[in-house]
């Protein structure tokens, strides 16, 4: 996995839609080099002075972009994702919510075959404050450059915790929303490996929630890996009912599978310092960094 550097060209899919327009502007304001848009039938238009092409292939040919931020509606996300990966996009950030599971699986397989990385779907994207690089929809004021890597299954919790960290003087080396769906284009384990390997990172904050066993798997991985940088965790949903989808498609407890308690126990046993509330995260980061 390679992150684009500050100034690298980025494209936006469905740039001419409502969210595409709004976030093209906000990404440009932050300093991201949004170099082209792609939207079928909208070639020749422009958004915020950025040219729009009919296809990703054209946008890539004109700009040499290797990253794309996708705002295409769920019904067409599979087709748009395939188009981007076939056109040579190496980092595909899918913001779209409500993408069917089988479409996500097909995209994951294609990305693996191409050696590409998908972030999302159903996520706020990725931000690297020191590079002024934002591929996504997160509010810039919550984030600041620093040494804490933060990644999460939840968008607004990412902002909330980044905001708390920023307010207490802990900036972020990178912050990623990996997505709230049952299938993530890139997994918590992949992100842990990546952020632990980032030179700028001194501590890692991982935010999970009820549903599935991603945090339990991560805990087993942490036990084996011998990571040296301290890990702080937070899990939302200790008081959530069973068998109910809590907003995110992936946030559901079936029987005893996917409970917050199981995740907190697994992470704690793996040596992760688990915060009880989002507000408690900065204190644990401070303690971990001594």
């Amino acid at each position, binding site marked *: 996995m390679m992150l684009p550097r500050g100034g690298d060209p980025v494209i936006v899919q469905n740039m001419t839609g409502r969210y595409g327009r709004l976030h093209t502007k906000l990404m440009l304001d932050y300093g991201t080099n949004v170099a082209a848009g792609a939207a079928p039938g909208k070639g020749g238009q422009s958004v915020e002075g950025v040219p729009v092409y009919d296809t990703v292939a054209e946008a890539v040919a004109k700009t040499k972009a290797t990253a794309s931020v996708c705002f295409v509606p769920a019904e067409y996300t599979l087709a748009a994702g395939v188009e981007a990966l076939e056109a040579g996009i190496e980092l595909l950030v899918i913001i779209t919510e409500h993408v069917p*599971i089988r479409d996500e699986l097909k995209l994951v397989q294609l990305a693996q075959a191409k050696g590409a990385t998908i972030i999302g779907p159903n996520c706020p994207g990725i931000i690297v404050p020191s590079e002024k690089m934002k591929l996504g929809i997160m509010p810039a004021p919550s984030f600041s450059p620093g040494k804490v890597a933060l990644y999460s299954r*939840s968008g607004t919790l990412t902002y*909330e915790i980044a905001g708390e960290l920023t307010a207490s003087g802990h900036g972020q080396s990178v912050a990623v929303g990996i997505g709230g769906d049952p299938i993530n284009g890139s997994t918590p384990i992949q992100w842990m490996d990546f952020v632990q390997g980032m030179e700028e990172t001194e501590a890692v904050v991982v935010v999970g929630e009820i549903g599935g066993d991603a945090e339990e798997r991560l805990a087993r991985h942490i036990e084996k890996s011998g990571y040296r940088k301290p890990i702080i965790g937070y899990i939302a949903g200790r*008081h959530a009912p069973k068998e109910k989808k809590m907003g995110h498609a*992936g946030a559901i407890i079936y029987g005893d599978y996917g409970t917050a308690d199981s995740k907190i126990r697994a992470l704690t046993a793996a040596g992760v310092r688990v915060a009880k509330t989002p507000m408690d995260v900065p204190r644990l980061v401070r303690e971990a960094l001594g």
Partner: protein
Amino acid sequence: MRLYEYQAKSLFKEYGLSAPKSILVHDLEGVRGAFASLTPPVAVKSQVLAGGRGKAGGIALVDGASKAEHEAARIFALSIGGEKPASLLIEEGYPHDREMYLSVTLDRGERSFVAIAAAAGGVEVESMKGKVIRKVPVEGIDAGFAAGMASELGLPPRESSQFVKILLSLERLAREKECELAEINPLAVGKDGTLMPLDAKVIVDDNALFRHPEFAKLHPEDEFEGEASRQGFAFVRLDGDIAVVGNGAGLVLSTLDLVGDAGGDPACFLDLGGGAQQDRVEAAIRLVNRLPGASRILVNIYGGITRSTDVAAGIRAVISGGGLKPLYARVSGAEEEEARRMLEGTAVKMYKTAPEAVAAAVKRA
């Protein structure tokens, strides 16, 4: 979306999967009629979406008409995971020696669908011994795949040939109807060696429903859930008295935790979604304001891109309509001070942090 057992079994039928003869009934009169036309013993099965209905007493096996009515009356009065059965499936018993397990389900960690089978089933798949799990390719499986599983399970030839057909049908159903789970538990092995699905559990991928209009009319809608879904809110009704509203699933989930830790009980989970503009905030607060059981409202909004003043304007619009329940709000973000001024002199209480707002809402400060 989970289907009721009778809906799942009718879907099974479309895919050539059999089930014992059964009749769906909605009242005791129906139970009498159904019992008369079936061969006893029969099973009286509550039709609910909550898990664990067997343990909750929601299933009874009976061999006489009066016993059937008696058990039906008892089951109709049950609350199973907070759900009252609106209908019962009266089904002929199937004498059998052994129970197997079979499902096609999503393995989130492996990021693949899997087929899971066990020659000797049980109630909980997690604790089943000798189960066989194989990854199912997205494009589907063939007879060789199914035969391989049968042989790994050590099934005798007569069972194996039936198992292959059943697994092929179940996998095709799960794939074509885009199910997160299609499960037969138990898959009974009859006295004569015939394999018979006795229960059916199907959960359809909500996000794929746009490709499956056939499921649109399957569920009676709760008034509030219907309204919330038309507005594009994620909404779950809970049994407490504090309506919880916020933007972003994780944030609302963590707010429920704060409420629970402070000794309160949420009446609902409402996620406004990303950009919480004035009209959406207004619609959400109007909705929870008339939720029976909710005596007060807690709003927790992390305004990133959302302007606090938009949220305040949405709240003000509801106040002007009158009858707003006590409302405790934490709205952070741009123009926070201005938003606070807009709500000054109203009954709305504003707090700087989520824990403060939660504490006040729980204590009715």
